[in-house]
């Protein structure tokens, strides 16, 4: 299953790189430059409100599954695939633990998109920033509302994960554990998938 998916990814990436302006000689030696030049050329992404976050995610070491932090300036095909693999659909027959594992990985990816400074918590500022970006296409009033929503959301996390607080107590930010707990109800593993259709991979990937 994994192999097929990766083959498909490879094919997709190949297709993409061919259609866009940068060239690759062979799969493994291709590099994408950090300053987004390559990514910026993608027309379709332009209307995406969280475009920069998506692009950042590709250059974030945390997403390479190598226990590193920080960001890189360029990525190779390996890294590209690794990031893409977060969007794999779970296979049909998996155990509960595997499902949980997949769920964790996917949520981790989303968490990293929130947590821009790598400190393991989403602070109110970071949250607000994300919400603002999300609503950035919603017109002028987005900003104020975004703040309100982010605050309400933060409060929600605080009250659910910590419970009633004493006055003067401060909720530092959302840790990943809280993040998991809050999103219990979201069936992320069934939703955050990309189906790689038209998969005549053996022909195209040669």
């Amino acid at each position: 299953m994994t192999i097929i998916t990766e083959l498909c990814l490879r094919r997709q990436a190949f297709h993409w790189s061919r259609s866009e302006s940068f060239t690759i000689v062979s799969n493994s030696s291709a590099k994408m430059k950090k300053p987004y030049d390559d990514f910026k050329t993608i027309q379709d992404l332009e209307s995406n409100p969280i475009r920069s976050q998506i692009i950042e995610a590709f250059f974030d070491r945390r997403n390479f599954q190598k226990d590193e932090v920080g960001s890189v300036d360029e990525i190779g095909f390996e890294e590209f695939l690794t990031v893409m693999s977060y969007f794999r659909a779970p296979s049909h027959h998996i155990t509960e633990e595997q499902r949980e594992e997949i769920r964790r990985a996917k949520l981790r990816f989303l968490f990293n998109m929130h947590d821009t400074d790598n400190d393991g918590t989403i602070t109110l500022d970071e949250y607000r920033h994300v919400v603002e970006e999300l609503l950035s296409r919603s017109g002028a009033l987005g900003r104020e509302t975004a703040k309100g929503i982010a605050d309400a959301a933060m409060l929600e996390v605080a009250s659910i994960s910590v419970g009633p607080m004493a006055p003067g107590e401060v909720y530092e930010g959302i840790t990943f554990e809280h993040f998991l707990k809050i999103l219990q109800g979201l069936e992320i593993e069934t939703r955050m998938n990309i189906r790689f259709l038209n998969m005549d991979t053996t022909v195209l990937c040669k």
Partner: protein
Amino acid sequence: MDYIFYLAIFKVLMLCDILFTPGYGENLDIPLKHPDTSSDLSTWSPNEHGAHPDPDKSRLPIFSVNYPRIQIPFEITLWVLLASFAKIGFHVYHKITVWVPESCLLISIGLIVGGIMHSVHEEPPAVLTSNVFFLYMLPSIVFDSGYFMPTRPFFENFGTVLWFAVVGTLWNSIGIGISLYAICQIEVFGVQDINLQENLLYASIISAVEPVAVLTVFEDISIHEQLYIVVFGECLFNDAVTVVLYNLFNHVAELRVVEAGDVFLGIASFFVVGLGGLLFGLLFGFVASFTTRFTGKVKEIEPLIIFLYSYLSYLIAELFAISSIMAIVTCALTMKYYVEENVSQRSCTTIRHVIKMVGSVSETLIFFFLGVVTITTEHEWNWAYILFSILFALLWRGLGILVLTQIINPFRTIPFNYKDQFGLAYGGLRGAVSFALAFTLPDSIGPKKLFITGTIVIIIFTVFIQGITIRPLLKLMNVRKTNRNLETINVEIHKRVGFTVDIIYVSILNYGLILTFFSNAGLKIIIIILNYNNCLVFQLMEHTVAGIEDLCGQWSHYYWKDKFMKFNNQIIRKILIRDNRPESSIVALYKKLELQNAMEILDSMSGDISSPPSPISSHASKSKKILASDVKNMHELLSKNMYKSRQRTMSHTNKHSLPNDVTAKEILIRRHTSLRRSLRAESFHGPKTSQKFFSLPTGQSLNSRLTPGRFASAGDDDAESEMDYASIRSTFRHPQRSMIPLRRPGNLKKVHSSVNVVDEENEKQRIYRSSRSGSSFTGSAHQITHQPHSFSGNISNKGHGSDSKEQKSFSPPNALKHEPQNNSDVQYPLLRRPQ
């Protein structure tokens, strides 16, 4: 005296007449002529009138009865009333409907009524003529389903739904038709006279699947959303396909000789009819939305616009002989989104109520008549044919699901496993539409009686046997459920709301959690626990996935959704929506919630605190103006006081229940007490007390947005009552925390410093009570508003009723005595049933 007696007799006679009049349906078709009413009257009049002869006819009538004039509407009214009584009856004991589907009960009642009619040798009421059914009942049933279709999951599973609805129905009709034709060839069974066309016609009738019973069960056992939506959508579009096929085969069956060319014409017409309906539906949907853009000043006719346009789409589709069901469903689906944004909240509620009401009445009536007709019609019984049609109906349904799922599975992100397939196949009950189609067959069809009998048998078989067993079977098989653990939810609710609920349906929306449960009083309550984080993260995820798909040139669901939303925001909404601001769903949701809350709170406040002329109430009197500008401030307040996660009543998920006003009330009370409290607390203590939860950057206050004017002014005037208020709060603590030394209410300083803690605790306590009382109240919403004997009532009375009284009653010793009493009052709310 004579007259009274005469009147009484007449009433009885009329009732008999209503129950037993044949052919009022025919009268419906030709309402100007009443050929059989007069004869009808004459049939019963001789013997009755003989016993009680008419006094004197030549005089000026002091009292006269003109029954024929009102007969038709009168009878319709009584039939509907009878059916409604039956429905009411079932829900008195909701436990019956949990185990036996409502349709079973309706059919049973119909059977009983039919039995009574049969025993007095009366004709069955010919209520269901083809016109009545196709022009009045079918559109209302279908419009109901179309309008309440959960849009997002529907479009997420659009392909599968269409696949099952169109191909599945074709499969069933053709499969059953041909196999029955094969049976007809066997001489032993004696049905050689039924030709292929008629078999196909019959097959198309019995392949119409009916959702109501199954969906109720699915909801109750909280089955996986995808299964739910596939059954829902399948049933809806399956009706469209069935009716198209029905008309087609009806036409073909009358031809007697079918050529090859006719088959191709039939196939072509199938597509024309279906797609034509779709186009008409879209057209009317958009026109309706566009019209509601301008109804802002004439709110009273807003709902009417919706009904008129959708009905018009149905009629015009009928006019052009294209799929009218398709048209009205598409119309409903298209306009719902835009219309609900344009029309006012009240109109929206009205629309939903009326649609639900008309739809369920039609369905009830059909089931009811099914029962009546079963007993009273002459049946043509052919064991072999009928048994084989049951067998084939089950077989082809099962096979169809099996094969079609295998084909569709590779295209689905989450494929259906075998248990799901069983659920889908076994959920294929036949219902109202099948019966009505069979019953309205033209007389030119030879084996009409046999078809009616067969259809009735299949319906009764599936509705009774499958309908009753599906719940235990699915439970036994442990079919995929929503992945939320019920136990934890219950614990959570218990923790937050304070009472254990018998949750029967939990569905995870993108922005939260819907709980459906029966309250103590037995009413179904639906609550959404709104979860901002879920919503936010979901949106983030959606955008990310769409972005990644863009990256690799992949076009799939999210891609199309993204593109559609863009198109929608840029073009469609600008045309159709009155004050258009392209908003992502969370903002819209957020605003709607906040606005609604603010309005509720302001409304209730202006009602409650009329006696002490505080600035708040004067504000509230011109509330509507303020609202727009103040919403932002309100939501700040609300976000803190909407205890934990937010709750609101849900409007559409359940197919057969409407938004529950009672729940709304309950939550409203909970909120408005908490808000009022905090409003005052807010105004009094100022911004300092509020945000301790966040790690705010220094020098930046969340409350900076709170315009000081309004609340500050409120604070000045309310300062005195505020003290009392604080004291009330502190006294409220005591029952719970008896360990803590009593705090004198006068001790303002101390109260201030601890007010937030107090608030937290009280909130819990209060929520506990108000929700308990609220749930016990569910029988009458009025009671909540008029007789606030619960805790929330206490607060509002004491907090706002009159300040002087408040001071007296809450002088420390009294307060302590009072409190436990109040508690005990509320503790067992069930003991005092709503009067």
